[in-house]
């Protein structure tokens, strides 16, 4: 390898992008060629200078604001008038939902319909989870990330299952409160719909019970010492398909144990 070859290759050499054979050849040439070695030193120094010269240009805040205003959601910035406005709208919507739920809750109290309070709670949790920033504490599409995250945060081991193949994408999980106790909430996506799956230790009817509340479908079942409530705006048949898929797929834990 001569100096002309090395002049081209030494950049890939410095960038750690050279194949092993070429790397060895360049190293060998440099050991015996002071001129090329000096080039290596010079380019290394320029590279370090470039990286150290604070030449990186960060996006101005005004640009972030402008882009945020033109995207469907004010996603980019922390605080802008539009974001504040949307938050206000969201708060208003939440108030309406809470008011509606409260009215519903009173009706329920009158009916003294057993079990319904849980459904109301679950729907309320679901609605709250859809407010900005409430959906997910651990964001991952991998059951092997989501499940360990719950360890130490709950007094039980929740079932976490990847249902991507069945059309329900796991996007994360969070802690939530249902009926006065801490529960695991898994978040799945069905197209643009969110499915919240709450679970906690307990026993109930093994077979599933389906309800509709405020336009949301609620599905309850129990399995292997855990109670489950799934809440979503997807079609009822989709939620039932979700339950079937969830029951059929082995959870991360049992998979790991095998």
């Amino acid at each position, binding site marked *: 390898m001569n100096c002309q070859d090395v002049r*081209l290759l030494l*950049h890939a050499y410095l960038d750690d*992008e050279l194949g092993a054979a070429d790397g060895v050849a360049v190293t060998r040439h440099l050991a015996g060629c002071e001129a090329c070695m*000096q080039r290596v030193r*010079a380019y290394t120094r320029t590279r370090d200078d470039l990286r150290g*010269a604070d030449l990186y240009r960060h996006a101005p805040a005004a640009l972030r604001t402008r882009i945020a205003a033109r995207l*469907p*959601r004010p*996603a980019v910035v922390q605080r802008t008038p539009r974001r504040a406005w949307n938050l206000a709208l969201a708060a208003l919507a939440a108030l309406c939902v809470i008011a509606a739920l409260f009215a519903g809750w009173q009706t329920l109290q009158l009916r003294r319909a057993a079990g319904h309070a849980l459904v109301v709670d679950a729907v309320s949790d679901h609605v709250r989870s859809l407010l900005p920033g409430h959906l997910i504490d651990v964001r991952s599409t991998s059951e092997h990330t989501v499940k360990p995250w719950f360890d130490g945060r709950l007094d039980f081991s929740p079932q976490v299952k990847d249902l991507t193949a069945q059309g329900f994408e796991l996007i994360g999980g969070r802690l939530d409160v249902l009926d006065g106790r801490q529960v695991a909430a898994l978040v799945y996506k069905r197209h643009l719909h969110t499915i919240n799956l709450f679970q906690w230790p307990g026993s109930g009817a093994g077979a599933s019970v389906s309800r509709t509340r405020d336009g949301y479908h609620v599905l309850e079942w129990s399995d292997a010492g855990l109670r489950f409530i799934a809440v979503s705006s997807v079609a009822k048949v989709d939620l039932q398909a979700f339950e079937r898929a969830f029951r059929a797929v082995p959870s991360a834990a049992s998979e790991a144990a095998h």
Partner: protein
Amino acid sequence: MDTGAIFEREVVRHLDAAYNLARWLARNDADAEDVVQEAVLRAFRFFGGFRGGDAKVWLLAIVRNTFYTQRSQLPAAGSVDEFDEAIHGGEDHDDPQAVLLRAADAQRLHAALERLPPEFREVLVLRELEGCSYKEIASITNLKIGTVMSRLARARERLQRELTRREVAA
């Protein structure tokens, strides 16, 4: 979570990288902001067609295309490399001793980088400031990896020359 939120999570978080590339290509704030804004909105329109992969590379490719489209001067593939080969023959520009004499400060580096042709500037910015691999640069610039390697080599030699020339002039 809707598409907007997913788009934010996957794409908008690379806004600094997008702006850095656009700013170094356009060489002024106003044009860079125009390029980035249009690129991000285009990216959002095309987001349905984005099938995973590296969102940063994907966004930077759109930024680059947007810049050259706005200028209506997408560089002809390989032209700059051939051109530079012609003037590259002499050894005098690359005298290692002269190169070592320089003490590059940020201002001179900045000026020298800005004077490079955009085809050289972009590979240097992507490599040295953004830390992209050759493969990523190849995806962003739509060049072969071998071309990325030789263009980066020529870009650095050219930058070195710019720095040296300024030193001699000063």
